[in-house]
């Protein structure tokens, strides 16, 4: 194991985050605050409690998941796409590092950044609404699992993408709709029958639901299913990455 290489890449990725602190930390915090102003205060004051939780507090786990998903994907996809784009990836490919080490370093870096961000958003939310976290260990577990899974997913997009447009395509056309329709802002019980069934096919629902359970002990679907679905998605990403690296897909061809 070339741990020095893993550390070198990880450190470089973290340095990049601190260099672009405005983009990576400040802007998500601002947009989260805006969500609170709009959904929590303006609209939320007219919505009654959901499952005994005030609407403002209800949306907190969903909002964190929203940022966690999008930031994990964009961090990881950009981290590997950019060197590919400018050509500096030659160095990584010519270095004595295994694919596993590359993954650990890049996905680790991207996941670390989005976990930090998730915690910052959580703290920001605490300024707006009273928060309770019933299962803090599970809360952290979901946070880490989701960050890692979607960083891995972002990494795949970064390798697949041949242009900046493609890089934005998946997050924009698939992830954003899924997160908005994944129960971040509502309980699926509020939906009419058919749509409730449709929503059950949205993987994001399970993340949000499980994460919300770790806060308030209440969820749309059972916690076991939530956890199971998250792990399944993680395994799918691992399988794709393994295939990419076995074939050298878009890296060594």
């Amino acid at each position, binding site marked *: 194991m*070339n741990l*020095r*290489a893993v*550390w*070198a*890449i990880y*450190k*470089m990725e973290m*340095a*990049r985050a601190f*260099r672009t602190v405005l983009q990576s930390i400040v802007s998500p915090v601002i947009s989260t605050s805006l969500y609170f102003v709009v959904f929590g205060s303006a609209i939320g004051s007219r919505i009654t409690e959901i499952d005994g939780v005030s609407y403002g507090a209800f949306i907190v786990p969903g909002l964190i998941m929203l940022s966690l998903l999008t930031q994990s994907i964009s961090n990881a996809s950009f981290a590997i796409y950019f*060197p590919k784009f*400018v*050509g*500096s990836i*030659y*160095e*990584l*490919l*010519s*270095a*004595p*590092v*295994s694919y596993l080490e590359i993954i650990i370093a890049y996905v680790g870096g991207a996941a670390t950044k989005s976990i930090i961000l998730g915690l910052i958003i959580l703290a920001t939310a605490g300024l707006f609404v009273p928060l309770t976290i019933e299962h803090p260990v599970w809360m952290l577990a979901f946070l880490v699992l989701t960050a890692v899974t979607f960083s891995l997913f972002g990494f795949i997009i970064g390798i697949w993408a041949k242009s900046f447009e493609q890089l934005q395509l998946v997050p924009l056309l698939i992830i954003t709709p899924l997160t908005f329709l994944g129960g971040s802002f509502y309980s699926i019980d509020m939906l009419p029958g058919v749509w409730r069934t449709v929503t059950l096919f949205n993987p994001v629902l399970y993340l949000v639901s499980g994460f919300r359970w770790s806060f308030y002990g209440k969820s749309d679907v059972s916690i076991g299913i939530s956890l199971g679905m998250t792990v399944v998605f993680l395994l799918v990403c691992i399988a794709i990455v393994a295939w990419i690296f076995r074939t*050298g897909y878009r890296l*060594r*061809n």
Partner: protein
Amino acid sequence: MPSIISISGVTKTYATGFKALKEINLDIERGEIFALLGPNGAGKTTLISIVCGIVNRSSGTVTVDGHDISRDYRTARSLIGLVPQELTIDAFESVWATVNYSRGLFGKPANHAFVEKVLRDLSLWDKKDAKAITLSGGMKRRLMIAKALSHEPRVLFLDEPTAGVDVELRQDMWEMVRRLREDGVTIILTTHYIEEAEAMADRVGVINRGEIVLVEDKAELMRTLGRKRLLLELRSPLATIPETFSRYALELSPDGDRLTYTYDNQSERPGVASLLRDLEAAGIQFRDIDTQNSSLEEIFVNLVRKDA
């Protein structure tokens, strides 16, 4: 001692069906400076990329100091430093950070004193805190060399090292390459500046259309393939070359006061001495006499053209 790099039966066919390399066999000797010459698109960069692990080969084997580049890629790659042709650096990193990063990437423990020495040798020390994006083209090129040397490689690949580099920097770079060779580093450079190969290389390989056309000791190459030219400045201009000299295939300059005789060591043509005797017998007198060796460039052009 066995060769430091041994390439055997390496082919590369891209997904498009383009055969970039056809059966390459090449051995690089320990401690030599090897120049790989070839026109654009001949396969130089593909070959280097395969040895360095950037591109997967279609078939064949490559070993670096006896280590297979697939089975034992860690050892093989850690012996190699690569300076690619394009200036591709993470633009927002400082010189210091990016060179130390390269060292870490190759699994070497941090050694600030060594990195400092590399930067000083390449006159980059006072730029160590500058971001790569602020450097001039020549400095960027040196930064890429610094990155390649940061992990103390035993083999250094320089892909078109002096493309777009000014004369002074080119001299510095040649000097640096010689110093590295003295330290026992094997250097493989690709170039289409023939003068570079001529000035630097111990051996020359010519690649064309994905095939190694020739590998030869440079001096030997110049001797066997090099043409010589004998220039004779005449005392009085000639209108035509006399019939008796037809076997020499002389060329007469338009104004008639210079004769050129081209010959090479493998030539069937008669030697210089007999030409001079014949000229004297014919009463053709000359003011001055000069000989020229053909350059590697001409040798190269002849080779590649013959092959086309």
